[in-house]
């Protein structure tokens, strides 16, 4: 360190409170070592990850989610059935393979097995149109997860932009923007979702024909529009609140005193400091989007047939609930596992990363 000493400056006044360095004792090596141990170099991120992996619930849900994701990626490559096609044996449609219970074969399939053919088992059985149910549930989970992911992404982007502008600009801009948020917040969202889905279905129906988006189905697109229009407000409020509190820190003022432009201050100082909260609430947004999608599909406003989603599968199973109850169990279990895991993981992330809950 440098070679200054409190004794070397001449005392201007006798009354001065300047301290006499000679009266201080040197720290022993043991004491210095103790300091080094206390100051083990960890970044905020590493520290948070360590805490996350100490939380058993979060770890279990992470494993469950990874398993689900691996399954829905790999299963379509292994299972030789398609979600939209009837089971065929030697090029002939197998009409006897309707509503099979799990791990059973139809008469035609049994005959084929006797002839020495390998037939892939129907893990979850088949549905009333002789389609393999396992692959349909897998595709349903795919749809549900991607809806959850992309809807949260839309919410994140719009909410982040809107909230940062309101929080950073402050004053009148903030006032106007937040009143818009209040109005949207006060709309009954379930009703709005249903209304918008119906209206958009009509409006988008023709204009989409022949484009890439058509394969997605108008319902799916209106679902994203609904998320984009309605569900970002919570995120915008959260981001604004975070920015308002971070803005008062002196390091933001210091950046302004250096001549930093607003964009730089937001990018370098404000966003990194509210990132953890934003990531956590995005993680918690995913299950709520999945749930909304399932709900809409259940009432028939979700994805377009023959594309399955966990919600529409559950809905379809209602018609023959007493005869084939397992058809409700599989998609319902899927929804439960996904939503629960995301919620538990989000909670774990919050406990690990939210500075307000620490120490």
């Amino acid at each position, binding site marked *: *360190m*440098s070679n*200054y000493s*409190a004794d*070397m*400056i001449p005392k*201007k*006044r*006798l*009354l*001065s*409170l*300047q*301290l006499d360095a000679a009266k*201080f004792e040197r720290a022993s090596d043991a004491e210095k070592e103790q300091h080094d141990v206390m*100051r083990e*170099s960890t*970044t*905020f991120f590493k520290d948070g990850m360590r805490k996350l992996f100490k939380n058993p619930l979060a770890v279990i849900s992470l494993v469950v989610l990874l398993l689900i994701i691996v399954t829905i990626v790999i299963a379509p490559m292994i299972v030789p059935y398609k979600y939209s096609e009837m089971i065929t044996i030697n090029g002939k449609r197998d009409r006897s393979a309707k509503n099979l219970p799990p791990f059973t074969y139809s008469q035609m399939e049994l005959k084929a097995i006797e002839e020495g053919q390998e037939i892939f088992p129907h893990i979850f059985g088949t549905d009333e149109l002789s389609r393999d149910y396992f692959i349909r549930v897998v595709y349903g989970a795919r749809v549900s997860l991607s809806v959850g992911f992309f809807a949260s992404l839309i919410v994140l982007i719009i909410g982040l932009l809107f909230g940062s502008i309101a929080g950073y600009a402050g004053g009148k801009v903030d006032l106007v923007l937040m009143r818009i948020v209040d109005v949207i917040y006060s709309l009954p969202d379930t009703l709005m979702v249903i209304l918008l889905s119906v209206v958009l279905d009509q409006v988008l129906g023709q204009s989409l024909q022949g484009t890439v988006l058509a394969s997605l189905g108008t319902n799916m697109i209106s679902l994203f529009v609904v998320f984009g229009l309605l569900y970002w407000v919570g995120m915008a409020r959260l981001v604004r609140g975070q920015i308002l509190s971070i803005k008062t*820190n*002196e*390091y933001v*003022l*210091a*950046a*302004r*005193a*250096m*001549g*930093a432009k607003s964009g*730089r201050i937001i990018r*370098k*100082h404000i966003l*990194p*400091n509210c990132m953890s909260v934003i990531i956590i609430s995005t993680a918690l947004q995913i299950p709520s989007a999945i749930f909304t999608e399932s709900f809409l599909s259940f009432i028939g406003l979700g994805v377009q047939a023959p594309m399955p989603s966990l919600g529409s599968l559950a809905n379809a199973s209602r018609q023959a609930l007493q005869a084939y109850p397992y058809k409700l169990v599989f998609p319902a279990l899927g929804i439960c596992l996904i939503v629960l895991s995301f919620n538990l993981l989000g909670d774990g992330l919050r406990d690990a990363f939210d500075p307000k809950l620490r120490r």
Partner: protein
Amino acid sequence: MSNHPLVDVRHLKQYFTVKSDMLTKLQLKAVDDVSFTINQGETLGLVGESGCGKTTVGRTLLRLYKPTAGEVYFDGNLITDDNINHYRKDMQIVFQDPYSSLNPRMTMADIVGEPLDIHGLYKTKAERRDKIAELVQLVGLNSDHMRRYAHEFSGGQRQRIGIARALAVNPRFIVCDEPVSALDVSIQAQIINTFEELQAKLGIAYLFIAHDLLVVQHMSQRIAVMYLGKIVEIGPADEIIEHPVHPYTQSLISAIPLPDPNAARKRHRIILQGDVPSPLHMPEGCPFRSRCRYATEECAKVCPTLEEVSSGHQVACYHPQG
């Protein structure tokens, strides 16, 4: 040499609008008509109770807050919203709180290097690294710790990082806003020495804000005493401490702790009576009159302005003492 002061503050005002309830808005006169000058390489000390507007003076001077009224000249040029960015390299600030003044997500190298990034003060990565190392060593920190995060440093070390950041753009003037009051006493002396060494080496002028009169006297050539947004007395440091004229300054000085208990017992301490008026409802006349022993009717009418009592020593009081 130019004959104008480096920093010339004229009739600076900063009024905050505060909402008292849903409808009524009140004006808080945090800084009310403050004028002073600071010469090249000089230190002006600014003292006063907490809440009297010292921080606001420093920040308004640097246009971190938009002034309600008044002008600031730097090196003879009027500072405006348009040209302030040009002067950001000449005027810097060191903050009071070493914890909230450093971004917890940045390493020491990035904190000190940020002003270099903003003003493009290097050509290569290596040049940037060398400049940062130089700055870090200049303020007495270990340049091996470049990649450490702010929270891994002690309060005194953090304050040094803040000083290095301010020095990065090679400023000619630094506002030091109570830079030592959040630190342990033993660390305070070290940081003060660092400020003095830097001034001797680089010829920087300081506006040194503190509420500790002894620290200010040690640092500064001249001292300004503030009370509720106004400067009540300004003059050479030793004269302010030895021959204070304003009753408020006198009470401040009589409250300085003395190391010798006998001397302390003999000394006459002036204990202020009365209440500090709310800055939201400032009374007419002299703001200090509610606590002043010498207050007369005259004091209640018009606020006194600064008048010279001896060379370079001005006081705003109708009844200057001594």
